[in-house]
């Protein structure tokens, strides 16, 4: 661990939006850490603040409505202190992003070749021709057949899987150090998803990038990530390496999540374990532990006092008053 080079450190990130209902803290005191060559997964249900966290790194949120607090360290510099111009220079160059929906994330009226060339010519001093060559190379790298041909086509002319490859090619054009992937395969079919995930991991290894991988699919997390943070209502509930998370989850929420996924084998006559209740809206965050209203372990304390992210072990952080009890395996029966 110590030998690993730190790439990105998020410290106490708080993202506050102005809305009609008043200010809303979508991301609350999130701290994360990512090293080179690692894949850090962020999982969580819809609205838990995954996208907000990832977009605040490059400050892509509507600047007029957003306030950031905390620090985001990238290679020793605080991104939140940079000028817009400095951030611009990083975007697409040192830090790239891939979004969920490959259709709407590509400009529909620009040929895909041009869209990739654009980012190359923006960050590298190359001629049009060279950029063109590089585009073809990238397309080939991402496994697109007859790339010269494809480069001239428009997003609507190619399939969803291809489009996501284009997004990947675009993100990797300048060989970034950090790749942020916000649900890159959610819109794809399972068989295509498998292809794309393979491709991403292959390229990650080749470029030794750090990847921040956002998803709501625990299966995907298990397949690609080295470390995972579980988010709920804008907070990180648990963070550890993948194996630990799936074998010994310490947070009741994580446990619930894992349990509620139907098995491909296993007893189908029994009901699925499920987490009762629903995610409350951000405008109505419960006092105490945010998960307490839905938590089968919750005690009075949970409803009153908010737990902090505590270290259960060196590489395992968890936000729960009862994690020690859980650690002892005394509460398995609940799910």
């Amino acid at each position: 661990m110590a030998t690993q080079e730190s790439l990105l450190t998020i410290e106490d990130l708080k993202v506050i939006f102005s809305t009609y209902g008043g200010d809303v803290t979508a991301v609350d005191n999130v701290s994360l850490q990512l090293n080179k060559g690692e894949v850090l997964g962020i999982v969580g249900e819809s609205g838990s603040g995954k996208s907000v966290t990832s977009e605040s790194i490059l400050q892509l949120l509507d600047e007029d409505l957003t306030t950031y607090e905390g620090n985001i360290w990238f290679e020793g510099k605080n991104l939140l202190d940079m000028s817009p111009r400095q951030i611009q220079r990083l975007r697409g160059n040192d830090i790239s992003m891939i979004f969920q929906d490959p259709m709407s994330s590509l400009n529909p009226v620009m040929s895909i070749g041009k869209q990739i060339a654009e980012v190359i010519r923006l960050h590298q001093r190359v001629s049009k021709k060279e950029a063109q060559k590089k585009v073809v190379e990238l397309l080939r790298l991402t496994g697109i057949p007859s790339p010269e041909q494809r480069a001239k086509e428009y997003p609507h002319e190619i399939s969803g899987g291809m489009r996501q490859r284009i997004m990947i090619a675009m993100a990797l054009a300048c060989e970034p150090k950090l790749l942020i992937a916000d649900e890159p395969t959610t819109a794809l079919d399972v068989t295509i998803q498998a292809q794309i995930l393979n491709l991403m991991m292959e390229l990650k290894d080749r470029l030794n990038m750090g990847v921040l991988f956002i998803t709501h699919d625990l299966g995907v997390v298990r397949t690609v990530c080295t470390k995972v943070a579980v988010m709920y209502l804008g907070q990180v509930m648990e963070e550890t390496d993948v194996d630990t998370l799936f074998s010994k989850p310490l947070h009741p929420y994580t446990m619930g999540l894992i349990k509620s996924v139907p098995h491909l084998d296993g007893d189908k006559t029994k009901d699925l374990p499920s987490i009762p209740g629903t995610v409350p809206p951000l405008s109505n965050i419960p006092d105490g532990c945010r998960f307490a209203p839905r938590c089968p372990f919750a005690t009075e304390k949970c409803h009153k006092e908010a737990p902090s992210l505590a270290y259960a072990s060196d590489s395992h952080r968890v936000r729960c008053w009862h994690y020690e009890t859980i650690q002892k395996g005394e509460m398995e029966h609940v799910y």
Partner: protein
Amino acid sequence: MNAPQQTEPLSHTTEKKKKNPTIVRLLSNRLLVRGAILILLSVIIAIFAPLISPFDMLKVDPAHRLAAPSTLHWFGTDNFGRDVFSRTMYGVRISIMIGATVTIIASVIGLIVGLLSAYYKVLDYILMRICDGLFAFPSILLAIAIMSALGPKTINVIIALSLVFIPSIARIVRSAALVVKEKTFVEALKAQGASSVRILFLHIAPNVLSPLIVQVTYVFAVTILTEASLSFLGAGIPAPIPSLGNMLYDGKLAIYTAWWMTVFPGIFIILLVLGLNLFGDGLRDWLNPKNVVLNRRRKKRWQRKSLS
């Protein structure tokens, strides 16, 4: 920087007490509020025109014609010696009445036409061709032609203007209905065996109301302007009844001698139409929160820094 962060604030200090966001959103929509104020003002004038007006709007007084604004005649008198203030108040009333009537007629017919053509392919072809035809027909010319065919009566102005605005409403309704029609709940209704009429008028119709209402405010505004243009071309509300439009037309004839005949009705027509447009814009923003801009939170970077 990698030092582990052991402690952090235990409770966040977000204020729990919140105002009703709908009302906040309504009131913070400055367009809507300003528009509503202007419209309200105009409507009050329209309703109370007979009470506000110190003079009979039709009473001629040739001895005091073209008198400049004074304490007696606040807005002066016109070329018949009629009180411009009283006429302006009535003008607001009549312009609003014409605008409202035309808008209501055009909306009802436009709504039905739009819904039907969104739902029935064959009807769609026929109705939309008619609408295209009427739409392509230059509106003022259409209105003038209808007016000269049917004769200069207020009711004919209303008929002419309604005809002019039906296509634009029908189109808006149609395109909104086409979107709603594809919503799953329509399919769900079909799956339950609901009849087309029920689906169309009880379910799709309420869902196209918001774009319709927005469009209606614009049609209202444009109606008032178009009536003014018609008056300018001699085919508006038949005199001597004052509409803001034909008052402007009268005023223009004496614009060098009696500015007040143009200026006061001019101000009122602009305010009224502006009010409607503001209201329409506000409404559109309100219904489509994407367009809304909140009170700014444009903190300078150094400010943020000093906070942390």
